[in-house]
């Protein structure tokens, strides 16, 4: 157990490593000088400290800094107000989508399942598009997206209860039905949306982006996300058992209905939050669990936490590309697949063992 804890910590620091390198690369890309970089890093750390000061000690001034650090206030603001929440959100979303994907793959006994199987993404997209169509503000768009995702999945669970057939089959079928319904809704909204103004906004939103993340956004999703993480992590062992099938799980004493419900609620919380705040980011929920399985094996006790780390690292990297590759930001949903597919093909070739 200690060994695994150690490995976890190592991976976290690995993740943090990327985390710190990321701003450095941006600084270099924008032509800053090398020792400015170290100052920026210092400022960055300082800004975190400040942020804690402001939030927890009620300190009024953000600029109250120790005299030994010379700080460019603009850089500070950029790091503190824009980059820091963005990075936190990217990490959270990366964790959320990959852990939800991993949990679903075990629950549905199918390695080709992704977290939007039960229509969470379709529902959230519909909700967001509706809010965009109605010209609502940013907060309402997020709320609509979140509620849309939750509604879609609860609809699926309700359908499954009505049909009372094989639980897994019922859920997948319900997911297809409800997903199709909501995608059609999205298409209708696109059809009626103003082609000059709203349609591009909708299209862009659907491709996913972390561009306009604020500290407020970050704090909004923190609580439901943490709830989702703890629910899924609490079901690690049961997920192992469940991936052997319903009958075996029951005869091993696992309350399969409860486990399934908990996993669906947890995964839906995470997926809806992710889509609400960043749009549809495909692929990561499918690929990262595989990648992690290739590294640490299929045991969910280790797989689930590791997947979270790998997912956040992966999405951070991709997000850096999204920001830096081009003068205009590339929608991250596109990049995850463009970078993810060859990467996955490479890993798959190297590690052909069935997973």
């Amino acid at each position, binding site marked *: 157990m200690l060994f695994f804890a150690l490995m976890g910590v190592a991976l976290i620091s690995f993740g943090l490593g990327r985390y710190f390198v990321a701003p450095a690369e941006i600084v270099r890309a924008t032509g800053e000088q090398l020792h400015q970089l170290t100052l920026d890093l210092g400022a960055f750390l300082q800004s975190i400290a400040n942020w804690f000061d402001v939030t927890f000690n009620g300190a009024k001034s953000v600029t109250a800094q120790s005299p030994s650090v010379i700080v460019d206030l603009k850089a500070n603001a950029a790091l503190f107000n824009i980059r820091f929440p963005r990075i936190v959100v990217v990490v959270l979303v990366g964790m959320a989508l990959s852990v939800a994907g991993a949990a679903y793959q075990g629950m549905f006994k199918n390695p080709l399942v992704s977290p939007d199987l039960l229509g969470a993404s379709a529902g959230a997209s519909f909700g967001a598009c509706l809010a965009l169509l109605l010209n609502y503000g940013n907060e309402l768009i997020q709320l609509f997206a979140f509620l849309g995702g939750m509604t879609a999945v609860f609809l699926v669970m309700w359908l499954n209860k009505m049909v009372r057939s094989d639980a897994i089959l019922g859920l997948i079928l319900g997911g297809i039905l409800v997903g199709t319904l909501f995608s059609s809704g999205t298409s209708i909204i696109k059809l009626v949306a103003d082609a000059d103004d709203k349609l591009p906004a909708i299209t862009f939103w659907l491709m996913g982006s972390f561009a306009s993340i604020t500290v407020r956004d970050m704090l909004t999703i923190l609580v439901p996300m943490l709830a989702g993480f703890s629910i899924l992590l609490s079901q690690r062992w049961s997920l*192992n058992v469940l991936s052997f099938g319903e009958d075996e799980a029951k005869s091993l004493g696992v309350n399969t209905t409860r486990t399934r419900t908990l996993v669906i609620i947890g995964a839906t919380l995470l997926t809806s939050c992710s889509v609400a705040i960043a749009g549809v980011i495909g692929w990561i929920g499918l690929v990262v669990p595989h990648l992690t399985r290739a590294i640490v094996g299929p045991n969910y006790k280790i797989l689930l936490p590791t997947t979270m780390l790998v997912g956040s690292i992966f999405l951070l990297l991709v997000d850096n590309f999204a920001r830096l590759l081009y003068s205009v930001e590339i929608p991250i949903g596109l990049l995850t697949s463009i970078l993810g597919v060859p990467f996955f093909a490479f890993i798959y070739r190297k590690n052909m063992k069935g997973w």
Partner: protein
Amino acid sequence: MVSFKKPGTQEQPVEAEAPGLLQVQELVAGYGRKEIVHGISFEMDRGEFVCIIGANGCGKTTALRSILGLLPVMSGKIFINDVDTASMSIRRKARHFAYIPQVHVPPFPFKVADVVLLGRTPHLASSVSDVSKRDKVIAYQAMQQLSIEHLAEREYTELSGGQQQLVLIARALAQEPDILVMDEPTASLDFGNQQLVLTRLHKLSRDGVSVLMVTHDPDHALFCADRVIVMEQGVIICTGNPVDVITSEIMHRIYGTHVYVADVMVGDCRAVRTCVPLMAADTDDRETGGRYL
């Protein structure tokens, strides 16, 4: 398939005073509203190896599944150690019954040791808690009992069908149940692997493990069972010692085919009873077809 008469089968005494391990009383079960098992009753003693045989669709699997709690019991009662299972949680039930399914391939390449460790699930303090060192020791002992400890670090998905089945049996042993319940554990295995699994099961049963097994092959029952329960169309038609119950008449009745039940000499002094299905040509022949053993 050659089957060996189980040593000691004849002198196995039925201890009347010992409380029965499993009691099934007037069990009615089925899928949805369709009733398949129409009230069966039987008992099983600790350490007994009981086989249920019968044709496809006779309700033997349905009965097994409702005993395990995988199907709702429509009426009737099931007692384990004189405790009614209806009042048991799924977790508690899992400490009494261990289910060994047919071999199937899980989607992910779990390590054998991890698969066996899953058997400890009903004994964990809660669904969130971790396995203890003791759990690992028990899992290892279960593997030792089946002589598969050398496979511990291998991937389950890489093993042969017979080895996979042994792993599932080890997982069931790690559950420390009162009864191992099996539904045609050898169904998808080749000849050699069937024999491997049956031999190990036979050994377990001599070590005192109680086994309730559904099988379609009467030879398997002859090979390892202490007692056979014969089912037909949802009811038990007879029960008893394998050598007494598995006769050509009964076989013909449940399988609708002519069977020659023979004692085959293996070596110099050991007779082995086995079922030989007869071809149509054989049964036309008055010499063999008219009068079976």
